[in-house]
């Protein structure tokens, strides 16, 4: 169905979405680029003119930069490893025949629907509080000294909170992928005498590889931008300042727009590198 009339109607109907998104992408992007080349301190003299690549150099050479990169990578990698590994195991478990499968599925998915500020606060206070938190009770029960999680072990605490939020996502997608596996393939492998572990390595894992890639890419994009969990727990203290939190602080807390914008450009480039890989996979899927 493609007549001239329908083609021009189609263009017209696509226009609002395209124009809006184009504006949403280009206007702030160009502004960020512009600010990143200027000394701009709204509270201390405003826009003080062109500085070339100074902001870019200063952002990278500041003492906060490399720790922030390390923190970001630690969070992203740890959460990815935890969620993918546990996600595969959970998906395998949930795929098995059992009673009340639907309910278990719902229980496992639930954390994904909890808003980030709620999960951060609940974990911070009701579980990780060094006096009244549930973990403190547990530690005391076993005779140990309660840990002051969000100051003494801030990174593990944050990684745990974020992993809890993203585990359902990984599990759900991997479960869907497992369920699409042809059971005849597994039965054929069983007939060929492959033991359980071999069946997992040679059939299930390769089948899941695409889903795992997608999980990794999508989660990476979101994990690079983790914000609320840090905002309401440590506020970036105790070694939990990620790259995006550092940029946030430069922009809103120290009101150094030029410096923050240069950081923003770095973040955009980083996200785009990940996005390119994701787009490739999604694009391939579109062809068939």
């Amino acid at each position, binding site marked *: *169905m493609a007549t001239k009339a329908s083609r021009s109607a189609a263009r017209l*109907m696509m226009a609002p979405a395209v124009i809006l*998104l184009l504006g*949403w*992408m280009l206007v702030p992007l160009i502004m960020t680029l512009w600010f990143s080349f200027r000394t701009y301190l709204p509270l201390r003299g405003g826009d003080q003119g062109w500085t070339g690549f100074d902001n870019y150099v200063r952002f990278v050479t500041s003492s906060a930069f490399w720790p922030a990169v390390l923190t970001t990578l630690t969070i992203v990698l740890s959460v990815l490893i935890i969620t993918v590994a546990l996600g595969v195991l959970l998906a395998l478990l949930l795929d098995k025949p059992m009673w009340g499968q639907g309910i278990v599925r719902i229980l496992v998915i*639930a954390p994904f629907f909890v808003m980030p500020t709620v999960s951060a606060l*609940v974990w911070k206070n*009701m579980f990780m509080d060094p006096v009244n938190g549930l973990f403190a009770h547990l530690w005391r029960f076993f005779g140990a000294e309660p840990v002051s999680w969000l100051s003494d072990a801030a990174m593990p605490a944050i990684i745990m909170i974020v992993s809890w939020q993203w585990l359902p996502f990984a599990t759900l997608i991997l479960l869907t992928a497992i369920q699409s596996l042809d059971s005849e393939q597994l039965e054929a492998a069983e007939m060929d005498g492959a033991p359980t572990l071999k069946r997992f390595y040679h059939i299930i894992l390769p089948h899941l590889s695409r889903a795992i890639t*997608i999980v990794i890419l999508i989660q990476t994009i979101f994990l690079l931008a983790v914000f609320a969990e840090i905002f309401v727990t440590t506020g970036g203290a105790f070694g939990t300042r990620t790259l*995006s939190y550092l940029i946030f602080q430069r922009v809103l807390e120290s009101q150094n727009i030029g410096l923050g914008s240069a950081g923003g450009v770095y973040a955009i480039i980083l996200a785009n590198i990940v996005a390119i890989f994701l787009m490739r996979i999604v694009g391939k899927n579109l062809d068939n």
Partner: protein
Amino acid sequence: MARAITPRRKLMNTGFAWAVGLLIFFPILWTILTSFKTEAQAIASPPIFLNFDWTMENYSIVMERSNYARFLWNSVIIAGGSTILGLIIAVPAAWSMAFVPSKRTKDILLWMLSTKMLPAVGVLYPIYLLFIQLGLLDSRAGLVIVMMLINLPIIVWMLYTYFREIPVEILEAARMDGATLREEVLYILTPMAIPGIASTMLLNFILAWNEAFWTLNLTAVNAAPLTAFIASYSSPEGLFFAKLSAASTMAIAPILILGWFSQKQLVRGLTFGAVK
């Protein structure tokens, strides 16, 4: 697997799966339980699991003290408004891409998705500045627009994958039967796509409801939704566990319920159709 399994094995699976499921769900369960305790019982040592005096007191205190209704209303307006606005813009666009594809359709779709990958923090100040200029800071309208723009790629994408499952021949049949473009969309496409449209709406409502970067940074008092309401408990006031729990329960309950309904469609929406 279509194979018989011994009841023993099934029982073991069931027990193990339920244990893991409850462990993952436990923080939510604990929050809900704590919301019905008194403050003293909430921090009792050792912790009380079920054996406490159930009270609704926390809920009424939270409602009175913090003007909960206004935050809730803001959340509903922002999530609902952005979803509906997004749908109005996305349905025609998805229709075009699904039924009048051109060589550029795929590129446009991927480009739309790529805008979703822009890190918010990278464009925070420009948006902040634009909002001040346009008088949109701390306004519901401003957040509706931002949420709509953030989620528009996902809405277009999800609708596109659903529309593509509708055979073109059926729309052509309607055209042969004398339906105008409007009648074709109204009587044929929309009724056939209702399940897809519904799950798209649901997922986007959830995403907008839980969004916690723009809602925290672009609101102060007037337009602040539940994400900001909860964040305000990160001050020492948050140590009142029972009230924090009541507030949290109220913030997540609607979405938990909606989320459970939409879980089947979730995978498709979250992976842009790459996993079905």
